[in-house]
């Protein structure tokens, strides 16, 4: 949102720089169980954004006094690989990564049945391998799949997307170039089955009416991503069922 140059982000036909219409998501694909050591893992590609998430736990907490007597603690690290960005990023956590780790953790905690695992910790690690806009959202989408893959009981998956405002138009799922030049960037995440908004941030300026419309638009994208998440889990589940039948 800072640069000086004027770039045409939406042409006269309403097409965005990558050819999408305002309400189009970028191509998404996702896969679970991509890592061997992690208890659960998922890989998500959303346009040029590539994130991998892993879950360890529930497991013992060290040091002990960080444990809760009545529920599992959730720790979350959102981290960007040094080679994921245009300029090399130092691997030390930036203030941005510290903030995003917090809001992502709070969003995930809203769906995990933490009270089932008192005195333990569930660790969620999100690594951004290539950043092209919407990394926190793709990270959330991946992390909730990894939780499911780890067999940790959750009320719902979390699906997330960023809505932007470009040249006065609300658009879905902005990419990095759009993010850099947009008037507003509103990442949001939901527990879709419950219609609950579990992450909501706004960087930029919207009128109150636009805020409502942006949430509406975000919901549409989230529902599509949610369907894909469920398919991904189902496919794997069927596969493993088939496998186990073969074994039997």
């Amino acid at each position, binding site marked *: 949102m800072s640069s000086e140059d004027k770039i045409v982000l939406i042409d006269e036909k309403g097409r965005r720089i990558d050819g999408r219409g305002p309400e189009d998501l970028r191509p998404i694909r996702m896969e679970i169980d991509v890592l061997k050591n992690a208890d659960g893992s998922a890989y998500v590609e959303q346009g040029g954004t590539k994130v991998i998430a892993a879950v360890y736990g529930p497991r013992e907490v060290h040091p002990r006094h960080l444990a809760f007597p009545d529920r599992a603690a959730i720790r979350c690290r959102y981290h960007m690989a040094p080679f994921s960005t245009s300029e090399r990023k130092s691997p030390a956590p930036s203030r941005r990564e510290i903030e995003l780790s*917090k*809001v992502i953790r709070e969003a995930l905690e809203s769906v995990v049945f933490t009270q089932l695992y008192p005195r333990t910790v569930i660790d969620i690690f999100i690594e951004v391998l290539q950043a092209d806009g919407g990394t926190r959202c793709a990270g959330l989408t991946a992390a909730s799949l990894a939780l499911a893959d780890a067999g940790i009981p959750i009320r719902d998956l979390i699906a997330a997307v960023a809505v932007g405002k470009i040249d006065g138009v609300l658009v879905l799922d902005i990419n990095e170039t759009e993010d850099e030049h947009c008037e507003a960037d509103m990442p949001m995440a939901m527990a879709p089955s419950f219609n609950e908004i579990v992450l909501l941030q706004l960087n930029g*300026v919207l009128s*109150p009416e636009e805020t*409502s419309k942006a949430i509406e638009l975000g919901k549409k994208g989230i529902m599509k991503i949610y369907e894909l998440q469920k398919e991904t889990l189902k496919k794997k589940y069927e596969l493993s069922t088939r496998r186990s039948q073969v074994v039997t």
Partner: protein
Amino acid sequence: MLIPKIKKKSILSMLERDLRLDGRSPNQYRDISVHVGVIEKAEGSALAKIGNTVALVGIKVGVGTPFPDLPDQGVLAVNAEFVPLAFPTFEPGPPDENAVELARIIDRSLRELDVVDLKKMTIIPGEKVYIIWLDIYVLDHDGNLTDACMLASMAALLNTKVPKAEADDRGFIKLNKDEATPLPVNRRVVIVSIGKVGGKLIVDPNLEEEQVLEAKLSISIGDNGVVAGMQKTGLSSFTQEEVEKAVEIALNKSKELFTVIDEALKKPSSLWEALRNNG
């Protein structure tokens, strides 16, 4: 920090009747006061109180190099310290995730509205620019730090004088405090934080209430009536309707906050006055 369940119960049952433990209505702020000019050596300063929450902001103006991708702009650096004298569990050391989040929320609110006219803060284009250090110091924490810190930050910026930059005979830039002009401020911004508890929305939750909140939404409002930032925090969620209602409330309450700032700017105050009337 575990509040007895019994207190949560009483908070909820009172809210059923639109009442709060400290006697406020759901949309009511605690007493607010802002004092500007309390740190005379700083180029700008303000102390804001919301109830027993106290935030002090000092602004120092220095000289530095611009960011390579923004060679013709001054630099604004926002930092928040939750110093350990403010709360039993605040610890010495680098800012934790809460302090980092708060500083970044305020930083974004200022940046998205171009509150400070950084393009006017260049000294030698591409080489030397003003650096505006905005340091937030929480002195006493009784809930709703965000709104108090934003208030103090906004008032401190409006209180800031920028010393004239002069080159000495070696070409080094020095700042001359005797010739200072007001910091160019384009517009004002405040934050209104709205908590959700038992499905009810309440403005300006105090510490006791924060401990039972399901979630909180901090909404930045510009003096031109726009939403200039939002941040949901807390372990639960909002519905779309709740967000919309919260935005409406925030727009409304922002007017009160702008008025408080206006009043405060009328005359500079002293730290002695500001701190003493705590009793």
